[in-house]
């Protein structure tokens, strides 16, 4: 059987053509679904587009970007977005990893526990937001009851009306779903880890932490990179949970950039400004993802 590779490791011309034909339909679809809206958004961001969208309106160059970057509303919202993203990415990844490690152990009921892991992930973001809004309610929500039972609080607290706790609660709600997604991907990665690696390390006297640090973690690195990059993108683009829980409030305590974009594009229909915000957010999410990939792969290349 012939190999598709040339001696120098590259594909032959025929194989490249074949590969191109195979990917062309999907690539075309992606171009239509991604490229067209992206191009339009960039175009809109350079114009003062009328609300009715019947024309591009006058060309204003980078004026929309100047207005956005010169606005304190934008910077406050950017700060909230960064805080939300840090909490979301960190806890989603760490809790997901912990769940994956736990569910990779042998115990009675593991099958059921693994099935339960899928439930938060299978629940739509909007539904999660509505559920958590009720759960965190200061008078009828279950969160207060749980905290009282645990002795973590002495009185009922209106978490979503307090600017100090509202953002934290929205992070918890979003993490609740995203951690299960991370857990599923990382569990899949863990299941490919050969048992004999850990067994050999144990025989050599490696303790639990050493085995995790030197075997499990490096093995999971490709999956971790994927999970972290996806979490970063989800974090920057998060809208549904926060909108359902607080609509950006109280005040602007939870007004992430995606909510600001929604308000500009669909509420007050300032299409040009909203598009400029969307371009900035898209760029930030892309940069965040790329930097993470670079950092994690650099760490992989470094000798342990």
């Amino acid at each position, binding site marked *: 059987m012939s190999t598709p590779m040339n001696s120098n490791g590259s594909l032959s011309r025929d194989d490249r053509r074949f590969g191109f034909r195979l990917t062309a339909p999907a690539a075309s679809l992606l171009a239509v679904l991604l490229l067209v809206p992206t191009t339009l958004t960039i175009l809109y961001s350079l114009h003062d587009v009328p609300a009715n969208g019947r024309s591009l309106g006058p060309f204003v160059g980078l004026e929309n970007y100047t207005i956005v970057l010169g606005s304190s509303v934008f910077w406050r919202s950017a700060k909230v977005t960064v805080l939300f993203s840090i909490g979301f990415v960190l806890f989603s990844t760490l809790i997901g990893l912990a769940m994956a490690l736990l569910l990779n152990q042998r115990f009675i009921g593991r099958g059921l526990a693994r099935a339960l892991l899928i439930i938060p992930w299978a629940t739509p973001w909007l539904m999660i937001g509505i559920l958590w809004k009720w759960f965190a309610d200061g008078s009828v929500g279950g969160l207060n009851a749980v905290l009282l039972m645990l002795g973590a609080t002495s009185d009922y607290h209106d978490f979503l009306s307090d600017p100090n706790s509202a953002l934290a609660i929205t992070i918890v709600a979003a993490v609740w779903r995203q951690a299960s997604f991370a857990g599923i991907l990382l569990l899949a990665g863990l299941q490919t880890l050969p048992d004999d690696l850990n067994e050999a390390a144990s025989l050599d006297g490696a303790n639990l932490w050493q085995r995790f640090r030197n075997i499990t973690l490096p093995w999971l690195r490709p999956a971790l990179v994927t999970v972290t990059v996806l979490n970063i993108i989800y974090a920057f683009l998060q809208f549904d949970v926060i909108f359902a829980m607080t609509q950006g409030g*109280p*005040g602007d305590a939870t007004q992430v950039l995606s909510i600001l974009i929604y308000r500009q594009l669909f509420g007050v229909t300032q299409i040009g400004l909203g598009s400029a915000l969307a371009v900035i957010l898209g760029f930030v999410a892309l940069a965040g993802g790329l930097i993470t990939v670079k950092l994690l792969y650099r760490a992989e290349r470094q000798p342990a």
Partner: protein
Amino acid sequence: MVAGGLDRRAFLKAGGATALAALVAPGLAGRAEAAGFTGTLDMLAWDFQPDTIKKLVGEWTAKGNATVEVAVIPNLGYSPALQTRLRGGGVIDLYYNFAYNSQKFIDQGWASKLNGLPGVDDMVADMFESARAAYVNAAGDIISAPYFSAVHMMHYNQRMLKDAGIAAAPQTLKEVYDASKTLKDKNIVASPYVAYWVKEFCEEYLHTYLLNEGVTAFDTAGKPVFADDPKTEGVFEWWQAMYQEGLAPKSVLNDDPGKLSNQMAQGEAAFFVLHHYFLSSIRSLGGPESANVMQGPIGGANHTFQIGEVLQLGAGEDPARREAAWDLMKFYGWKDSAGKFTVFNQWAKAAGLAAPYPGFFKDPDVIAAFPEYFDLPMISKTFETGSKVVPARTLPWYPDFQAKVGDVVHALLLGQATPKQTVEGLTAAANSAQKGRSL
């Protein structure tokens, strides 16, 4: 008298020979409603009692009119959804809209002016003079018809006041503050005052409380004159004190009016300022305190905010279709062909909603439709002489201002801004909205 000479007399005069006929609604009596159009009209509404909406338009169709396809979408997010549909090229013959969007929709070519349509001048002449500026702009363009109207009123728990030794319902801001303190100090109720202080609604309260102090926030040209009136800062001081001193529950920044009504019904609050028809909700909840909740005018100045969401006619150009849609609009936003307030009567029965027409309050069917706990003459009088609509609310830049108010007011309530900074913040919001393109 409102801007543009749109008082009742001017309209009747403009109607000339129709003045007499206006009294018997000539645009309505005996007409064959939209007989020339046989297709299907498209109507878009938010999801308040969708079955009632369909029943009402069904009644119109049953009179030999066109069929109506009613689409209903949630109230939360209605405006973005509607604008997205219209921007995408969708043409809707008749739709609900928020009053503050109405001029913008005309300017964007999404809605039609109603001037010149048969009976429209009679409809406007039929309105309370106080209401007219919400539907007719300063240039005399008729931009919408009423879907429903309401006036902001004070709801208070009479039993609690009596137990606290307070003889009469408090009127001024200071009286309400003092009464709330007394109720709290005597442990009658922990957080006596509830208000619908979510971000989206802060703008409406702004007008309610400023009008109550005799301040109309904007002049007819849209200048934010509230900034020049020292009473504005006083209102904000009061808001901040009520929230910061725990006289209002912390959760009001997120609570929906259903929850607030229930707090009144359950005896968890003693005061609630909102549209008059919320008395209906409070009473029908059947809580231990429901029957003790009464309604009265807000404040000593007896000037409150009159609100009304609207119907707008789509921008379709087919004359027969447009005529049919206008006929449906008259039926839905004014009277039926027999001159009866059929639709408004149904909304009055269903939820205590009102219409901005003096005749509505004199109609025996309407009087019978309102539960007896409503003081209908008081509500009618409030519409007539005790309330204003703030005409600037329909200016095209207004939705932008409306969207900014919530953040500024919440910062005040949370103690992150002083009353003076709030005045400055709202003034800046109004100015930047008028300038265009700002966050």
